[in-house]
């Protein structure tokens, strides 16, 4: 392990569903503390790429590395399960549809995994829940059930749930796409706060403004390849590729 080794590295990722190739030989690296946005039209493979990083959608070929450890190791089933469960503890993920556990309170949503996987006591778990929920501004709702929350509140709890495992990396899969417009901001604020705390984040998003204001780097994907990447001011203001320009123009028109 050298100091210059990238924190996250995806090497020659390929993903096929039968005949259809949704990721075509993608390689990328992310440094510790970096915040990367992945943008692109739907069907471009951006969610698939994100979900390959924690092996939720296993790659057909290619490697994913996190902090010097291969995530998608080739191992016999049992050993692989053990390995991937270990790896996933370090990779938080936030979904478009929140996926809170509806049968558990907000508190239990946050503490279930740490209790099961880290064996913390009930007291520690309570403290952890309070700390994480305060962080996302949801402490007052600690004993509510998910069905009693708004979409934005649900997503903030989902973020707290992921953070409670103290991940090294957070993946956001269109975290605000399912929200009513007026609820987007509260979630964006939490994500900005995480950015200020130097959490490493990979964010699949349709929100160009948010990507531009928070991210260090923007990756534009289309048709299963990375078409263009760079700092947001370059990709958004001065794209070199036609496909990027077309996408951004269409997107702007759509926003109007």
């Amino acid at each position, binding site marked *: 392990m050298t100091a210059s080794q990238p924190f996250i590295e995806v090497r020659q990722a390929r993903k096929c569903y039968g005949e259809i190739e949704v990721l075509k030989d993608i390689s990328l690296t992310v440094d510790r503390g970096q915040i990367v946005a992945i943008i692109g039209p739907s069907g471009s493979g951006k969610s698939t790429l994100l979900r390959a990083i924690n092996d939720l959608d296993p790659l057909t070929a290619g490697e994913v590395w996190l902090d010097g450890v291969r995530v998608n190791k080739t191992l016999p089933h049992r050993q692989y399960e053990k390995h991937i469960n270990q790896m*996933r503890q370090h990779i938080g*993920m936030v979904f478009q*549809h929140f996926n809170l*556990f509806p049968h558990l309170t907000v508190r239990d949503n946050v503490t*279930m995994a740490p209790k099961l996987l880290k064996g913390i006591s009930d007291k520690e778990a309570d403290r952890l829940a309070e700390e994480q929920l305060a962080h996302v501004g949801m402490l007052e709702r600690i004993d509510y059930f998910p069905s009693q929350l708004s979409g934005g509140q649900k997503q903030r709890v989902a973020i707290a749930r992921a953070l409670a495992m103290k991940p090294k990396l957070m993946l956001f899969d269109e975290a605000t796409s399912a929200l009513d417009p007026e609820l987007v901001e509260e979630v964006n604020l939490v994500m900005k706060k995480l950015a200020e705390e130097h959490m490493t984040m990979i964010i699949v998003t349709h929100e160009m403004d948010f990507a531009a204001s928070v991210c260090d780097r923007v990756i534009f994907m289309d048709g299963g390849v990375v078409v263009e990447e760079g700092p947001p001011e370059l990709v958004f203001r001065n794209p070199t590729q036609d496909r990027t320009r077309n996408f951004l123009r269409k997107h702007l028109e759509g926003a109007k």
Partner: protein
Amino acid sequence: MDTELMLKVYPFFLKAALVTVELSILTGILGLSCGALGAAARLSRFRFLRFLGAAYVSVFRGTPALIQLFILYFGGPQIGIQLDAFQAGVIGLGVNIGAYMTETMRGAIISVDKGQREAARTLGLSQFQTFRKVTLPQAMRLMIRPLGVNINALIKGTALVAAISVVELTYTAQRYIGSTYKPFEMFLIAGVLYMIIIYGTGRAVAWLDRRARIV
């Protein structure tokens, strides 16, 4: 209608109704166990177990329960299975209803949103932990009502064991008809008692379902 006769004989029917209840409970327990095993097999990672589960379901749902009972009770001794009528009734009906319950449980488990499993796995939970803490508690709530339907069918199905001479409600009614020649009255008593049992069970299921509802 001979109400006087009905009032005279109904206490004997109550006894028989208890046998029906007992039969239903034991059959229910066996059925739920078979259902759980069957569902586990149907959803297994191993192709062979999936095949076994599917075979179990199609054999037992694909043939009349009465034939299954006859094979077990009358045909059993030929292949070395000696059961008394009550045992054969419980096992025959239990394994039969288990096939239906297999599908009920499997249906409930697979209808838990895939995102729930994904969220749990993403946090680092194992497959088993995910099932126990996330999928199963939600599936249990989903399966209460359809299992109630299975149990309803099971209670009515216990009438079949009259055919292998288990002294339960239907058999008792038939026996009293033999001596009174009053089929209308005798079957009416039996029918009312079945209804009471089924109504009570239905209320219990509805209560469970309400209690398990997610806030």
